[in-house]
């Protein structure tokens, strides 16, 4: 009797399964969206300081704006650095001093020595950095950021979508970077915001 | 007494004469009585498998067959023993269901095939919606014989010759694999397909 019931159950299950079968076929379409990060300057990344008096201070602060487009769902870490030109070439110009981040600007008319830049970054005496003067990064707006001392650059955290990153540089010169051996005229530093940690 | 004997003889003779069909050629009396015996024939279907199914994936059917018993005291001069067939068409009524080499054409009974489709299937073409042809084999016991022929009188038919035999069994078998090109899953609608075969003795 038990066996009969088992067989009956199997039959019922089989018939039910057969009754629910429907002829069908499928095809999957698959596409891949590659990662996309686009960084472009909205305003010039070249910061120019025009020293016109003996204070070394500027009439107005400087700023540079970047636009970042990212299709990542995760926050992207970008790298913001500044460079300036010495007789040693294109060198990193960001440094921290006394808890603040500064950018060193090199004289355009007379390219300073590499040692001059190094002295400025190391916090030497005003006369130790002829042709190099430094101004503070007052803020970075539009995205979270963190200055990495060991690298001499900022990590900037850009989320999904379009992000405008503005770097604001103050007009008050770093006192121990400016002396009488820093002539009036144009001093320059160039900002770059990159995906790669170069 | 003499009267009784005569009557008994008469009874015996009458019995012999009337019982000729069942016991012909077996004389019970030495005195033969000459009379005109009319030829007679009996045809009956003795076994058959007349229904089956077709696998739609390939047109193969489950097998069909029929056996007929033929008894006659007639000869091939007295009768034409013929096996004819019919299939129902949409636009021509009943027509012969034979094709090449005596194969048998089956027609959809709900979506009737056209005469054009039937004619196409006869010659093994592939433009024959709702017609499927299967091979047909016929056999008959010795000394009788059977063959496919196109007769002016009867059209396409399988013709049986008794060859002076008096009893034989005709066996017909419908092959399971369709004649090439006559079955197509796209052309032949689902449903019942039919062919009718008739074994007839026609007095000449």
């Amino acid at each position, binding site marked *: 009797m038990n066996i009969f019931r088992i067989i009956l159950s199997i039959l019922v299950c089989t018939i039910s399964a057969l009754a629910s079968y429907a002829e069908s076929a499928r*095809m999957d379409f698959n596409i891949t969206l590659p990662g996309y990060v686009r960084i472009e300057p909205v305003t010039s990344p070249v910061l120019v300081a025009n020293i016109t008096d003996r204070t070394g201070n500027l009439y107005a602060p400087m700023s540079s704006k970047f636009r970042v487009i990212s299709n990542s769902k995760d926050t992207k870490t970008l790298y913001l650095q500044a460079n300036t030109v010495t007789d040693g070439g294109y060198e990193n110009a960001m440094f921290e001093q006394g808890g603040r981040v500064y950018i060193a600007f090199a004289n355009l008319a007379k390219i300073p020595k590499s040692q001059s830049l190094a002295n400025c970054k190391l916090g030497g005496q005003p006369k130790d950095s002829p042709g190099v003067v430094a101004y503070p990064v007052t803020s970075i707006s539009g995205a979270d950021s963190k200055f990495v001392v060991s690298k001499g650059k900022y990590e900037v955290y850009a989320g999904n*979508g379009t992000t405008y990153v503005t770097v604001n540089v103050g007009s008050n010169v770093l006192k121990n970077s400016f002396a009488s051996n820093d002539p009036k005229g144009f001093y320059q530093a160039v900002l770059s915001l990159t995906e790669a940690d170069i | 007494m003499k009267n009784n004997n005569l009557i008994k003889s008469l009874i015996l003779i009458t019995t012999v004469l009337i019982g000729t069909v069942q016991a012909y050629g077996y004389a019970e009396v030495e005195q033969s009585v000459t009379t005109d015996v009319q030829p007679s024939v009996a045809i009956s279907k003795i076994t058959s498998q007349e229904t089956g199914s077709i696998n*739609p994936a390939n047109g193969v059917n489950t097998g069909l067959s029929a056996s007929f018993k033929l008894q006659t005291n007639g000869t091939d001069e007295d009768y034409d023993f013929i096996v004819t067939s019919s299939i129902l068409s949409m636009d021509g009524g009943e027509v012969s269901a034979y094709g090449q080499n005596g194969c048998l054409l089956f027609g959809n009974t709900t979506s009737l095939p056209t005469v054009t489709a039937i004619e196409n299937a006869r010659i093994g073409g592939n433009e024959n919606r709702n017609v499927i042809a299967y091979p047909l084999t016929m056999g008959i016991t010795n000394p009788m014989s059977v063959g496919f022929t196109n007769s002016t009188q009867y059209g396409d038919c399988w013709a049986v010759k008794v060859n002076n035999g008096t009893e034989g069994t005709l066996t017909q078998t419908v092959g399971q694999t369709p004649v090439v090109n006559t079955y197509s*899953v796209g052309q032949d609608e689902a*449903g019942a397909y039919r062919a009718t075969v008739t074994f007839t003795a026609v007095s000449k």
Partner: protein
Amino acid sequence: MKITKLLPITLALLLGATGVYAAGGADAQSQDTAVYTLNLADYLRIATETEPNASDVSYGTEYSSATIDTAMTGVFKVISNNRTQDFYLVGTCPTAAGTTKCLYGADGDCKNLKMVFTKIDVPPAATAVTNITGGSPTTGENPDAIAFPLTITPNREDGPDESLSATWDTDKIKYTMNNGIETFTCTVSGSNEAQTFSTHDTDGQYQATLTMTETAL
């Protein structure tokens, strides 16, 4: 019993006996018939004859658009021996709820329509899809869901020359065909439908599935 009575009885019996088969008389059977009937069962087969290739996507300037690099083409084949056969083409894409119907915007003969693709690894909410399939998509309200054009080209391979009918049935195509063999070439190519693509559509694998089926899912 007298022989005179026996004779008629004997005659009657003999005539009765010979009546079983032909004796040249009125009830002779000189013909018999076999009526052969074969039942051809219903048959329906739906198969994917060709699977579509996968493709990368290229972006317009500043992520303004997404274009499929290589047209993706798949082919269904439907074989039926039924006088009339209904079947359906359904599109689905992965969503947080499982899958969501993703076909919309069909033209009159259902040969040109649109299909929504969604991200596979973390599928979006169904609302991202319905924002598009509703017919008035809004950029930003369909994250990780992108619609592309889909074309369907039917072709009669065998069977009577009767026409295939295709009608839009809420969220799928309903086909009716006569017995025969029909193929359906389905191609996704081109650029995204307007308002369905933005940076909210994050990088990764996206998928949409077409199913040809006997029953309305």
